[in-house]
């Protein structure tokens, strides 16, 4: 894989660095507003996530150990690297593995304290990763089979529209998205509606600046995850670009709807559902695609 840094790449990386958290923050604010409206409430201001993070930065720093801050910062940095690699059009496999590294650092941050809640959260986070990682790899395989390249820049700039031949894989991505966005029923490891059996899961022992860093890295992550949807629709034309963005908005609305419509499931159930649905959908998809390719039908 050659790595030529072009001005476009630098601009995209900088744009993601600066606009990523802005867009992520607005998405989180709109999410909370829509959620409130769905529940018949008025809801917080759109900028509430920003106020929350600013507040956390103002709070007295309290850390349980030095390692924790380091792991949280590493998570933020790897999350930013993931997004940058994605938005400059680098290799999809590289992007996926950096994303996993970021997630692992969060688990380490949670494991570094002795609180039973964060330990439990960390365990569940690992189980969740085990549940969705195979599906994520199959998504990359599927995109490669249709587009003939793992490079994001090639995937978005040409070739057939991936969503039709990859319908099964697209469905499994929606499933993975629900887990990665930490939406109910899969908000097992870090409940965003606190005051429950696991308090705040992996973030229970993390407060102040570090918690703010986790929030910001979620903004980055959400922008990246939503940007990923675009890969299924892009073929270089403006029309499909617009369709892709509409699809992103619709899917996010669907995620909010799912979030509000389901209670949290146990990890066993989440694990089983995830493997069954994602592996059947994407596995069958990949096999069918393989045969279609063999007879030159795609």
């Amino acid at each position, binding site marked *: 894989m050659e790595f030529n840094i072009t001005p476009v790449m630098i601009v995209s990386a900088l744009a993601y660095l600066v606009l990523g958290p802005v867009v992520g923050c607005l998405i989180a604010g709109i999410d909370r507003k829509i959620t409130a409206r769905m529940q018949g409430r008025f809801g917080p201001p759109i900028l509430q996530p920003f106020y929350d993070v600013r507040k956390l*930065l103002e709070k007295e720093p309290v850390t349980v150990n030095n390692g924790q801050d380091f792991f949280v910062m590493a998570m933020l940095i790897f999350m930013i690297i993931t997004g940058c690699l994605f938005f400059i059009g680098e290799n999809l496999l590289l992007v996926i593995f950096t994303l996993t590294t970021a997630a692992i650092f969060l688990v380490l941050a949670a494991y570094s304290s002795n609180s039973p809640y964060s330990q439990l959260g960390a365990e569940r986070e690992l189980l969740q990763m085990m549940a969705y990682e195979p599906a994520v790899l199959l998504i990359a395989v599927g995109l490669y089979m249709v587009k003939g390249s793992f490079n994001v820049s090639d995937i978005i700039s040409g070739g057939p529209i991936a969503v039709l031949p990859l319908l099964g894989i697209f469905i499994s991505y929606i499933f993975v998205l629900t887990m990665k966005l930490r939406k109910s029923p899969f908000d097992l490891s870090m409940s965003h509606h606190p005051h429950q059996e696991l308090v705040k899961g992996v973030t229970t022992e993390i407060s102040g600046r570090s918690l703010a860093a986790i929030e910001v890295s979620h903004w980055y992550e959400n922008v990246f995850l939503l940007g990923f949807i675009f890969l299924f629709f892009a073929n270089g034309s403006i029309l499909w670009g617009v369709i892709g963005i509409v699809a992103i908005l619709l899917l996010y609305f669907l995620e909010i709807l799912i979030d509000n419509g389901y209670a949290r499931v146990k990890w066993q159930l989440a694990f089983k559902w995830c493997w069954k649905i994602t592996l059947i959908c994407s596995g069958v998809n990949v096999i069918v695609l393989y045969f279609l390719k063999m007879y030159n039908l795609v």
Partner: protein
Amino acid sequence: MAYVTKSPWVIHYDGSSCNGCDIEVLACLTPMYDVERFGIINTGNPKHADVFLVTGSVNEQNIPVIKQIYEQMPEPKVVVAVGICATSGGVFKDCYNTMGGIDTVIPVDVYVPGCAARPEAIIDGVVKGLGVLGEKKAGNYKAAVVQADEEEVEVQSFGETTDDTAVATDKEEV
């Protein structure tokens, strides 16, 4: 401007309340009152909380719990005593196991009277607490800590609610 006043996260602890006040605290989260429009979130986690809502009076067994929650909350923080039990001990004041109001253990910034305190009063109390939070952030931070220490000494003389209340009220004016 202190952002802490725009995003107060609350931890709610039930001392020895009859649950009347607790139900009213939870009622604040319902669509009818919807405190989330002020950015208020009910966290179950002292490390994330800015406002400590206590209902019910203090008894022998929950003194360490209340102290621990209070100590785990990062500064700046405020304590809101909800209901007359949390304010002074209320009808339970003379019970053999009751210490009195929350201010016999930790410094209280805002008292919300009522039995049970109405959701409107609780929201009003939290909003008053935000004013105190803003002041603490603005520079009375040190003063608040010092007074908390003084209070810790006075904890030894349980039951003298009137004295402790005076200290806490002074602090509110700081």
